[in-house]
């Protein structure tokens, strides 16, 4: 007994250190580019080639530059507007679709789900060329709707999948229980179902928002001016404070500006989403 216990302990410790080491490796690997961009954004443009990871002296000049450039500020406005609208439309539609898929039995339900999956894994880049021509023909080129439409259609399948999986887990008898307890149909829905469904909808909204927010391919192909260009595309056109300097540090600052809010958003809501997901089922 004791022999085997002592024998397993070093083994357990070794396993533990391996997994911890692996975790650290992954975190470093994924965080390094972000840390690097952060450090770049704090260097002055001339300091770019200082051959060091950290800036020689720290400066916020790049951020000032970025926020003075209309290319960037317009793009930020476009990004926020387009992503939000695409998310709202996508989530509302996906919620209805997922509700139907989770709760109703109708012919073609499987077809819809398989089709959604097919679209979700469809290589979107393959559509860029034809969309470009089409959008120019129908005057959607370089407009907000011109981006919102593809974003909605490409995030919708995934949203429907996530939401219908989530809705299936919701104990729908709650609605009936509430009605027996004296609620109207609407009260039953808002008091018993909405609080349970909200975290799922929220999770989906965040996923959909990211998809639109970080898209580069559509943004660069379907826009030409500040009218609809979003931040990822705009960064490519960045020239920095003056034409005589490398714009790298300013681009890094721009990148940080659009990344950090997202990271914070995720960190803040992660707990709520996870908590919401696990609070779901109350079976015996």
């Amino acid at each position, binding site marked *: 007994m004791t022999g085997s216990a002592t024998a397993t302990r070093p083994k357990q410790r070794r396993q533990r250190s391996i997994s911890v080491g692996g975790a650290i490796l992954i975190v470093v690997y994924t965080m390094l580019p972000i840390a690097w961009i952060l450090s770049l954004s704090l260097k002055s443009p001339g300091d770019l080639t200082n051959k060091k990871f950290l800036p020689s002296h720290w400066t916020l000049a790049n951020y000032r530059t970025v926020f003075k450039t209309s290319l960037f500020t317009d793009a930020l406005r476009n990004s926020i507007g387009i992503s939000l609208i695409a998310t709202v439309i996508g989530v509302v539609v996906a919620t209805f679709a997922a509700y139907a898929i989770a709760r109703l039995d109708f012919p073609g339900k499987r077809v819809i789900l398989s089709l959604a999956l097919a679209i979700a894994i469809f290589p979107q880049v393959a559509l860029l060329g034809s969309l470009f021509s089409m959008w120019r023909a129908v005057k959607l080129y370089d407009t907000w709707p011109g981006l919102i439409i593809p974003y909605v259609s490409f995030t919708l399948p995934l949203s429907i999948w996530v939401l219908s999986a989530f809705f299936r887990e919701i104990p729908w*008898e709650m609605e009936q229980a509430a*009605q*027996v307890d*004296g609620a*109207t149909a609407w009260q039953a829905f808002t008091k018993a179902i909405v609080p349970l469904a909200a975290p799922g909808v929220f999770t989906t909204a965040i996923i959909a928002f990211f998809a639109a927010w970080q898209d580069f391919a559509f943004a660069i192909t379907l826009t030409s001016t500040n009218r609809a260009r979003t931040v990822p595309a705009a960064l490519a056109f960045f020239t920095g404070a003056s034409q005589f300097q490398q714009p790298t540090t300013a681009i890094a600052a721009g990148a940080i500006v659009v990344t950090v809010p997202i990271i914070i958003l995720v960190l803040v809501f992660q707990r709520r989403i996870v908590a919401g997901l696990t609070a779901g089922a109350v*079976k015996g």
Partner: protein
Amino acid sequence: MAPITMNHITKVYGDGYPAVNDVSLEIADGEFMILVGPSGCGKSTLLRMIVGLEDISSGDMLIGGERVNEKAPRDRNLSMVFQNYALYPHLTVYENIAFPLRLKGVSDDEIKRRVEEAATTLELTEHLQRKPSQLSGGQRQRVAMGRAIVRQASAFLFDEPLSNLDAKLRGQMRTEILRLQRRLDTTTVYVTHDQTEAMTLGDRVAVMRKGVLQQVASPRELYEQPLNLFVAGFIGSPPMNFLPAAIEDNQVKLPFLSYPLPREVAAQIGDSDLLIAGIRPEHFADSSLVDEHKRDRGTTFEVKVDVTEWLGSQQYAYVPFEAPEEINRHLAELQQELDGEQMRTQMIVSLDPASRIRDGAKAELWLDPSRVHLFDPRTGKNLTRDAKAEAPAATATSSASGSASSAPAPAPASSSAAASSTAPASSAAAPAPASAPASGSAGSAEPPAPDGSLRPT
């Protein structure tokens, strides 16, 4: 608090199959009514029609004398405990129990008082601020009960409330529910799979089969005077033994013994010569342990015991027998309907644990033939059912109950039962009145012990 009346209630789902078929049932004010039947027989559907979660295809549902077919669940003032409790996961125990009161707009003080009262009754006081996910199965069950009793509902409806609990907790909660129901004296409809719950809780038990009501009676009557083969096989654990009974020369020939054919059966069977005999395991005995004065009433016979099971308080012996193909087919069908697996043709004999009968040995058993039920294999009808047995009970009921409403009411119950024609209204008249506490103990209202009720000719 209100009586519930169902008149020819039918439920047809989209696929055209009647899940509940022409059920008429009268549940008296304050009565504890049990619905039992094999899986899929329509118990839940019926319950959900009472509460209003399922539309009624045809028939009338009356609660407190008022037709409620078109009323929404919220207007029926019933409370229901669901099989999986259906607690609101995002609300605390307190808010879960308070939920129906909040919807009614009861004042906060009143809510606090009533929730705390319910919590005390159910011993939930310490858990009021926790979420349902932090509770054990039994505690969740009690929260669901709390939510049901916190408002003064006209009736309680339970859909297999204990099936998610382990055996021990189930026993505790069962007595808890019984105590609560007796104290609140609220009309209760309780769906269950469980024999013990059905037999111990109910004033009356309604047995369903494929959407059709088979028999409504006190647990005791169901056990001792089942109306048909289905009820006989469903009620009782271990189940009633079914043996082939050949009729020859006015004798009933069972695999191991024969006895004279009772006259009232002879009058009913016409020229058919094969019946099914139903014998409860405990009606057999080890002949060496039968009292001298009792022995003469029965017959002794020898069997070869295959296996015995000794359980301390009881002992079971398994005795294989041969049955003709026709009987086997009927029994296999029945068994399938009863959710059983089986079917080796063997009979289960319940013996005194003191009995020395052992595996593989020859044993001499004793049986009182007057306790054997004979069933028509084609219709399933119980030919030995003694309608007279209930006659005194019926008079005792009406005189003892005082509340005239409960006694005559249940009559329609038998109208939908397949074999009802032979037992005009009497099957339904026997139940102990709802007002009588603990029907099981109300001995005077029960049919007399069947010892004297069935006399062999």
